[in-house]
Every structure is written in structure tokens, then in C-alpha cells.
């Protein structure tokens, strides 16, 4: 409980302040919904929101899983030789810079309206941090340890699995933390175009001028992102607990 108290206090204070300001008329309710209105919208539309939440979660999770595995595989490939790295890394950066809003209509043409487009969007938006962080981690292996492995005749594959990858784990997990939030954003953007899930709820509620419902859906999307982030933190704690400083000064 002690851990949750510090972030909870500002949240409660701000929520109460906003509620008071909207009720009192200092802030128009058509611009900022009162927190009580958001809660009511959450309750009134609970079935619709629950179904939308399930859809968005599925797409974000699948997209994130795909970007995790593909991103790590690409990073392993890039780390294997300087020539490969120099030739192909700029294309990986492309995933970072391409504006997803611009290519989302293209995704619809390739994948149609539905889950596949949303997953593709989540994938594209979240893969770069996985590649960048995994690559940095793999390239930062202690040279003395690499020598040690060579001394005992370890192949490149064995060195990757038993040395380079575990050593890169803290860095990889950093990349996953960033990617998890991006996967949710990517899913929502994909849903604006592809038409399902929380993104669709936001889009439709916006055209109906239902700010309360928009905020309710956005709140759920944020909780989804938070949940994924917490999951990565849990994995980090379990795997790094014994040996990495980041998980030890608690």
C-alpha cells in the first residue's frame, strides 16, 4: 500500500479539483467532462467498452508480441556483422520515423478492415525500440568475456545464447518497456482507420460530441498501456532480481 500512496494523492487531488471546476461552471463541460460524468459513461456503456477493450487489448498484445520477437531477431542479425549493420540499420530507423497516420490507409488496402490492420499498426509503431535497445545490448558485451568464451571453443551460437543475450537483458527490457506503450498507441491509431475497439469508440463518440465517453475510452486505453508496462516490470524484477543493480536497490 505504501508503494501506491505517493502517486495516488496527486491523482485524487486533481480529480476532485476538476470535478469542482466543471460543476461550478468555470470549465465548460463540453470541453472537459467532469470525472463523475466519465465514471457514469464508463458504467452506462460498460458492455460496449468492455468488448472494445478486449479487442484493443488483443490487438496490442499480439502486435507487441510480434514486434518483440521480430525486433529481437532483427537485432541479432544486425549484431552479427558490421557490414550487415551498416547496410540495414537505416531501414530499421524507417520504422521509427514513418508517420503511422499517413500509412494507415495503406495498411487497410493490404490487410482489410479489421484485426489484421490494427495488429500491423501496433507492430509498426512498437518495433523500433525493441530493435535499437536489443542491438545496443548485444553490441555491449564485455570483450573479456567474449575472449573467455573463445578460449573454450564456444561457437557464435553458444556465445549468443549463454553470454550476449543474458548480458543484454537489462537493455532489452528497457526497449520492451517503451515498446509496450507504443503498441497500445499503434493499436488505437489502427482502430481509427480500421474501425473497431477503443479507437473506434473514441472516433464515434467524438463525432457525437460525447466528451465523457471519449475520456472513458481514453482512460481504458491508458490502463491497458499501464498494464503492459507493469507486466514488463514484473518480468524485469523476476529475471534481474538476483544480479542487476537496477532491481536491487529497493
Amino acid at each position, binding site marked *: 500500500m505504501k508503494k501506491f500512496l505517493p502517486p495516488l494523492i496527486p491523482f485524487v487531488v486533481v480529480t476532485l479539483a476538476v470535478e469542482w471546476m466543471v460543476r461550478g461552471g468555470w470549465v465548460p463541460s463540453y470541453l472537459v467532462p467532469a470525472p463523475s460524468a466519465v465514471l457514469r459513461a464508463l458504467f452506462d456503456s460498460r458492455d460496449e467498452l468492455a468488448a472494445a477493450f478486449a479487442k484493443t487489448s488483443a490487438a496490442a498484445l499480439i502486435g507487441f508480441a510480434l514486434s518483440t520477437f521480430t525486433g529481437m531477431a532483427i537485432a541479432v542479425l544486425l549484431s552479427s556483422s558490421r557490414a550487415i549493420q551498416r547496410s540495414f540499420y537505416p531501414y530499421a530507423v524507417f520504422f521509427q520515423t514513418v508517420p503511422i497516420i499517413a500509412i494507415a490507409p495503406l495498411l487497410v488496402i493490404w490487410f482489410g478492415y479489421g484485426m489484421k490492420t490494427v495488429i500491423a499498426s501496433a507492430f509498426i509503431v512498437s518495433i523500433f525500440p525493441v530493435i535499437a535497445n536489443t542491438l545496443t545490448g548485444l553490441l555491449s558485451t564485455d570483450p573479456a568475456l567474449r575472449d573467455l568464451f573463445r578460449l573454450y571453443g564456444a561457437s557464435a551460437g553458444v556465445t549468443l545464447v549463454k553470454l550476449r543475450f543474458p548480458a543484454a537483458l537489462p537493455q532489452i527490457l528497457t526497449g520492451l518497456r517503451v515498446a509496450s506503450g507504443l503498441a497500445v498507441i499503434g493499436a488505437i491509431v489502427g482502430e481509427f482507420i480500421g474501425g473497431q475497439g477503443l479507437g473506434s469508440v473514441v*472516433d464515434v463518440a467524438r463525432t457525437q460530441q460525447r466528451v465523457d465517453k471519449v475520456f472513458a475510452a481514453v482512460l481504458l486505453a491508458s490502463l491497458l498501456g499501464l498494464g503492459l508496462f507493469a507486466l514488463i516490470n514484473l518480468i524485469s524484477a523476476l529475471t534481474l532480481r538476483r544480479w542487476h543493480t537496477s532491481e536491487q536497490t529497493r
Partner: protein
Amino acid sequence: MNRRTFLGASAALLAACGKPAHNQKTLRLALNWKPDPQFGGFYAAPYQKHGLDVEILPGGAGTPTVQMIGARSTEFGIVSGDELVVARSRGNDVVALFAVFQNCPQGIMAHASRHVASIGDVMKEGTLAIQRGLPYARILEKKYGFDHVKVVPSPGGDISAFLHDEKFAQQCFVMSEPLLARHAGVDVKVFPVADIGYNPYTTVLATSGAQLKSDPDRAKAMVAAVREGWGAYLNDPGPTNAGMHDLNPSMDAAMFAEVAEAQKPYIETHQERTSLGSMTAERWMTLIGQLADLGDIPQAMPAQDCFRNI
């Protein structure tokens, strides 16, 4: 400094923070789409002749003009009639001054090769791309049901998905997307939404009630300038189109001319140019009734509150 000076200075500072800083004399007009022929008259309007300094702010997909008016980040904005009524029901005091489209040009377009006879037939199969949150969409759903058609978000001006798929039907402005489709070699059949009895004023110049109250003379001058501008644009859209084309190169000059011609019947229904853009309480009342039936507004409201003919 003493306490009074301090409080006064703080109050002034806070007040200045509340409103976006801009030249008091400049009036802003926020569009809800990119510059194209539906705004022709606004670009052609002789504001300076009427003593006004107007800055037109082009928009795009999802520009929240009705909220911008309410938040005072623009003095004037272009909204649709139904969104204005909904905004009023939410406590946003927006008032209509000039309706460009006397008849709503919204419609559904389908491939002519499908040989569909009525709007209801479009909903029997395939895909329908609409903005589901809009009132007309829900009227369609109520009347025909969406059980047999796949509903997807409207691509907003982009017809590439439409061109690729024969069974794809899309929301459109009858003088815009259908022309684009024909140019791309696809013959289309268009079903105006007005045919099912839903006909709100569209592309409406609006302002906030507070703005109207505090500066009625300039609002009147604005409407006069806009009316004159539309008269000029209807006579000769060429020069204004050139200017808008510079701002929005996504449509070519020939297309601009074609659309400007095709939209005329929706604008000019009165015989006298002097009543271009004017509105009736009856029309607003019908709209309010339809929206109340749909449940988009909690209850009916006086039609007179929604508009002014000035």
C-alpha cells in the same frame, strides 16, 4: 507594490492567459475541411470593404470547429447544422448565421455496376464506409439495419478503397467524391441522404452567442461580406479557385471548376441573391425533432435559439 496592485496585476495576468492572445481587430474563421469549393464564397468575400480583418484558418479531418467556437479560440467557424444543435444541447452557445448548403449534400455512393435501386439495397451486402457517429448514419441504421453490411470508418475524401472493391459503398458529398470516382474511371450511383428525409443545413457559418452579443455590428458586417462573396463566387469561381488550389493542391484546377459547378443547385435555391444563406425556423425545428427522436439530444429546444438571419 501594495496588495491591491498585486491582485490587480495577477487578475490581469490570469485573464490574459484565459484568452489566446491575438490582435483584437482580426476575426478568425475556422474551416472544418481543407480549402475547396464548399468554402468558395468565404475566400471570395470582400471583408475589407465591410471594415473587417478576417483570417481564414483551413481545417482537415476532425477539426473541432464547434468546440473551438465554444472555447473562443476562433470567433467564427464552419459547422454542420446537426452538430450545432447537439453542441447547444451540451451547453455550448453556438449560433448559426449563414447556411451555404440549403440542402444537405451528404450522400452514399455505390458502384453503378451493382445496379442498386435504392439506398436500402446498398445495405444488403458488402462494405459501407460511414462516420457512424453522425446522426444520418444512425437514421440509416434505424431504418434499414446494418446486419448484412460490414460497417467501417469513412476514409474521408480518399476513394482508393472504394475503387478497389465493387461492393464498397462510401459516404460522400454528392458533388465531390462521385466526381473523383468518375475521373478514375468508375461510374457511380449516388443516393442523397435528403431522400430519406434528413436534410440539415450544411457548411454553416456560426459564432458564439457571446461574440454576437458583444459585437453585433461586426457579426452583421461579416454576414454581409460573406453573402457578397458567395454571390461573386457563384458568378465566377475561377479566380477564387486558383487561390484555394494553391492552399490545397490535392485537387487539380479542373476538378475545382467541376465541383464548383456541381454544387450550385445545393446553394442557390432562392431566386434573390439578397437572401443567400438565410434560414428558416421550420427547418431547424424539423432537425431538432429528428435529433430528439434519435436520442442525440435529451430534449427539444427552441429553434429560434439556433440561428439568426442578420
